[in-house]
């Protein structure tokens, strides 16, 4: 305490701030924690990937298994993200602009994927669509393979990423209320035109934010996809699955090379997210 009093004489802290000792202890703890658990491993990914040179790094990415995994991940997210976008907009619109029975239930169910372990999610699909499952027999008779195939991977990824867009949109739509929509109606706009010209533009940034988070999760999902993919190299391996395979085959440079792509995706997502938040904040300050 003596030290702090001496400090006060030279430089007065703001009355609302606590002791500078506490402040610096908190800052140092946070920084140490972040560097140990986040920054260091992230830097290590890139260091390991480039440990045998840039050429080797690119060669690893050009391996047929790598290329196939990248293609698979892109395919899945290209299907899942638009689907969740449509679902998210529809659900958020329904929940915020209409009154109907079961609204609270719908809100709870939207959140379900957040609270279920992805592995369990994958298992649920295997049990439903797999050969031993209720629908499996029928599907097999009609020559439709969902489990251990791309459709199954799309389904589980959709399940896991279901809440992202809706969860982002609901608060934004709630905040904007219904008055703008009512104004559009009084000016003669149909429900669809009102949605297209008024509702959607007013939530476009929230929507973009949701899509980015949804995409990051869709590309990075491991557990659920792992259960339903069947790990057929060159066919049903996504990037995260291939990373594991490379690593288990003692090809750690290839594993880290592929990981570096996912890490970069994460960094880009973070950058865009920060930019969107900054933009929103600036807009709100002006408003």
């Amino acid at each position: 305490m003596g030290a702090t009093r001496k400090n006060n004489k030279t430089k007065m802290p703001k009355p609302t701030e606590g002791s500078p000792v506490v402040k610096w202890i908190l800052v140092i703890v946070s920084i140490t924690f972040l560097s140990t658990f986040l920054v260091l491993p992230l830097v290590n990914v890139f260091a390991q990937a480039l440990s045998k040179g840039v050429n080797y790094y690119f060669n690893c990415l050009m391996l047929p298994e790598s290329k196939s995994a990248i293609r698979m991940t892109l395919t899945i997210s290209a299907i899942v993200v638009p689907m969740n976008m449509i679902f998210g907009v529809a659900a958020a619109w329904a929940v915020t602009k209409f009154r109907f029975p079961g609204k609270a239930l719908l809100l709870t169910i939207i959140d379900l994927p957040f609270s279920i372990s992805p592995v369990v999610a994958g298992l649920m699909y295997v049990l439903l669509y797999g050969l031993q499952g209720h629908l499996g027999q029928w599907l097999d008779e009609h020559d439709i393979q969902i489990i251990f195939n791309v459709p199954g991977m799309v389904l589980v990824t959709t399940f896991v990423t279901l809440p992202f867009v809706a969860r982002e949109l609901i608060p934004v739509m709630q905040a904007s209320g219904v008055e703008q929509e009512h104004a559009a109606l009084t000016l003669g706009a149909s429900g669809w035109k009102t949605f297209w010209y008024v509702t959607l533009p007013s939530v476009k940034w929230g929507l973009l934010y949701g899509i980015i988070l949804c995409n990051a999760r869709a590309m990075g999902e491991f557990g659920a996809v792992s259960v339903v993919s069947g790990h057929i190299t060159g066919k049903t391996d996504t990037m995260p699955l291939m990373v594991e395979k490379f690593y288990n085959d003692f090809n750690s440079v290839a594993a880290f090379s592929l990981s570096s792509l996912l890490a970069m995706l994460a960094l880009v997502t973070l950058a865009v997210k920060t930019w969107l938040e900054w933009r929103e904040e600036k807009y709100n300050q002006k408003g």
Partner: protein
Amino acid sequence: MSIELKNVSKFFGDFPAVYDVSFSVKEGELVSLLGPSGSGKTTVLRIIAGLEYPDSGEIYIRGKKVNNVSVQQRNIGFVFQSYALFKNMTVFENIAFGLKIKKWKKSDIENRVRELIDLLELNGFEERYPHQLSGGQRQRVAIARALAPKPDVLLLDEPFGAVDAKIRQELREWLVHLHHDLHVTTIFVTHDQEEAMEIANRIIIFNKGKIEQIGTPREVYEKPVNEFVARFIGVMNILELEVKDGVARIGELEFPTHGQTEGQKIRIGFRPYAVQVSSDVNRYKYKAILKHTYFLGIMLRLELELESGLVIKARMSKEEYNLLGLRDGMPVSFQIKQYRVLSKEGSELPPEVAVVYDTPFIGGDGI
């Protein structure tokens, strides 16, 4: 008839938000729906617009029954309390929205928007977004947007509630001028009796979902049909007296009885302008101390305290006040020129009673 409502009712659950409301508005009229909050006036406006459905009753716009006509087809202009401007559109795009929806030609849209921008003096703000405008400007954009598609009727919901006092006064004058120039049938909702008195041709007073009175500002002020209207429009002194020895009394004040017998209560109301004040303590019957003077622009409100502690509100012009040489804390005398016997709330009021005094009085009549 531009707008007609016949026996319109609307319930929220069991609660009658609007109950058996009927009135009509003539072409080109400027009518105010006035009442305390929760009196159903906004619901009535939204029913006319088609934003709410009535549970019973009929609505006519220009002679056509519109109960089953959607809000889009009613050709109304609606101005929302919180403006409800499209925040992702510029001022120009906001005003043009209704015209674009109605598929006007591009050049016609351009001309119409220009016209409104001139009319509402929004020049130079065309490319701004709503968040870059002041409250008064936003409200003008909202009015321009509602007027752009040439609606049959303009509906405004508490249009000046969200702006500060000075802008509110400006906007009121705007609305009167605009109505004078365009002559579009206009209905606006307000809880501010002064605003309704100032702007409207006619006032429809709502209370608890029902209409209490319809009339010109002067009629509702001078001939209120019941105590609610009398108290809601303007300031009123209200006293509860007891009949003793054949005279109704409270403190020093005495009024003649109106059919009440000994010991019965009687309620009396009178406007501040009906109180005559003199600086000569012997001039009028009652003596009091001028406790406080409230400055209300050109009029002043005086608070007179009698010896018994009873407080009476009076009103006079600044000129009269100066002529009499009044000051706070001064002893004065006063008399009451007219008063009303107030019946129970909801029932009709008997006409005003004028009191004739022998002593002449000086000074203006006041308002």
